């Protein structure tokens, strides 16, 4: 139950062992996703020590080489080591996606819970807006804003936020209405409990798990979107190494050095796959407990 997560008794097992128990109880995709993401985080964190080369070091004579014993994933058009550039980087794609997920999560949940609590016209209006906005591709908004203001992290963040809040709002609103309809909430209100109390004590804890689950799914989606914008040259600017940007730089050499394009794409794919599997694994169990609760 969600309340356990808030009020754990003093003799409850530690955070780590609880995390282990939680992971074991999940669908296998959750465990596989955690394994992928953990491995990637470890590699990136250790990058300064394990990266075989200086990611910026150019070697114009050894450019566009396939995999060798020295350069495991080959070299790019400036002779830089691909593996090192994948490992070290400002991780712009990942960071901006994560920040966008957190912001949209907060905004969407607040709007959803408020709409669900308010009901009536406000609810109807909010949900119709969600219905319509959800179909607007975020890439279009992003490109429009970039076209006007130029590329930059703030532009990108605004673009991702404008429509990104909608899935959370829809979900939070549904959960809120479901909880609202339960007898004990009405009983609590009849007994004169404050609305805010009901909201924090009963509604938000019920939202935590499903919303966390879709956050991971959305994170995967954002990674792909931001990577795509970088690929178009509308994200991070060179010479900062970034996964999406590496794709763009590699495109002219697709035939000569295919790995140059396949490698960064595969990394984005793996990262997106990892978080998607985590989200899916959580979602399966969440819906399972949802059935038990009703």
């Amino acid at each position: 139950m969600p309340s356990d997560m808030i009020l754990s008794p003093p003799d409850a097992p530690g955070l780590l062992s609880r995390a282990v128990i939680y992971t074991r109880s999940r669908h296998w995709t959750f465990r596989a996703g955690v394994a992928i993401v953990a491995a990637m985080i470890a590699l990136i964190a250790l990058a300064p020590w394990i990266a075989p080369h200086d990611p910026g070091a150019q070697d114009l004579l050894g450019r566009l080489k396939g995999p060798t014993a020295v350069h495991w994933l080959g070299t790019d058009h400036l002779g830089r080591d691909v593996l090192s550039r994948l490992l070290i980087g400002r991780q712009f794609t990942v960071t901006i996606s994560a920040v966008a997920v957190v912001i949209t999560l907060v905004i969407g949940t607040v709007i959803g819970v408020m709409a669900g609590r308010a009901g009536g016209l406000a609810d109807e209006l909010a949900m119709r807006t969600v219905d319509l906005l959800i179909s607007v591709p975020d890439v279009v908004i992003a490109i429009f804003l970039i076209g006007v203001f130029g590329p930059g992290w703030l532009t990108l963040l605004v673009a991702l936020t404008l429509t990104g809040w909608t899935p959370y709002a829809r979900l939070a609103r549904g959960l809120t209405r479901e909880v609202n309809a339960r007898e004990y909430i009405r009983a609590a209100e009849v007994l004169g409990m404050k609305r805010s109390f009901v909201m924090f004590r009963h509604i938000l804890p019920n939202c935590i798990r499903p919303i966390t689950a879709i956050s991971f799914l959305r994170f995967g989606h954002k990674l792909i979107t931001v990577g795509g914008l970088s690929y178009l040259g509308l994200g991070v600017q060179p010479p900062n190494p970034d996964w999406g940007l590496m794709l763009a730089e590699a495109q002219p050499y697709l035939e000569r050095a295919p790995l140059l394009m396949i490698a960064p794409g595969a990394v984005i794919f793996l990262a997106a796959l990892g978080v998607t599997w985590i989200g899916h694994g959580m979602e399966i169990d969440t819906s399972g407990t949802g059935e038990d609760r009703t």
Partner: protein
Amino acid sequence: MWKLVLQRLSILVAMLLIVSVAAFAVPLMSDGDPARTILMSRTSDFNLDPDAVESLRTELGLDRTLAAQYFGWLGHALRGDLGFSFATRQPVLSEIARALAVSLTLALTALGWALLVALPLGTLAAMRPGGKLDGATTLLIQTLVATPEYWFAPVSVLVFSLWLGVLPSAGWQGPSSLILPALALSLRPMAYFTQITRAAMSDVLQAPYISAARARGLSYNQSVLRHGLRNGSLPVITFFALWFAGLLGGSVVVEVIFAIPGMGRLLYDAVINNDVPMLQGAFVAMVGLAIVINTAADVFYVLINPAMRGRHAQ
């Protein structure tokens, strides 16, 4: 019924107005002076004659108030006049119309292919929940969702164009140039369509009217075909509209990779060329179209679902 249509239409109009305000106002918030931008693009000279700039400002109506400018712009836009592209000097509307036809072809091909795979696959997976095929389908869905087009596309070009040489790697000539981009574009909708079909069909397969149909002597497969598929396809329609609207504009990456002259490419070029009228026009067209398609699908859903039709009629 009509009440529902009216309600959806009024929300649609309100949203379109908001989109138009955004399209008009956002470019004003940047530091650039449109008159200078236009002149620069015409003369490719950074030392502009101040008088020329001033006269162009008057000509463009930039000396009027913002509201007057907006309503002037909106009035033209409603009459189909979205201005002229800085880059090509062509009317924005005709450029959009040409690009839209291309994107429409691409999107419908991709979605048609996605449905062709998703409907049977989702149905089969739902028929044996927890079975081998169901597990494999779930895995496929989760994997396709995470596959970036800009990774799949180059790999497919590598295999089919460069190695096998059976399909063109880029361009827009004939049906064969449609295959690879449509394939790349179809992956994620395919995943979501399969997921939604599976969910809808597993609901339908447990529906009482399937048992009743079997009690009337239909085989299980006949019951599902005659009475399950239509009910199961209702949620898929909503999803189809969502992706149709999304793919029309969201295919920027694929259109750029394959050099396809569609809406995505138009938008991208507008950014690269700093072509504000084209940017505004493409933005309004794409977002507006997404909203219009979505509303249409919403109303259509009610029309084809007899039960919904009845409920709203009362």
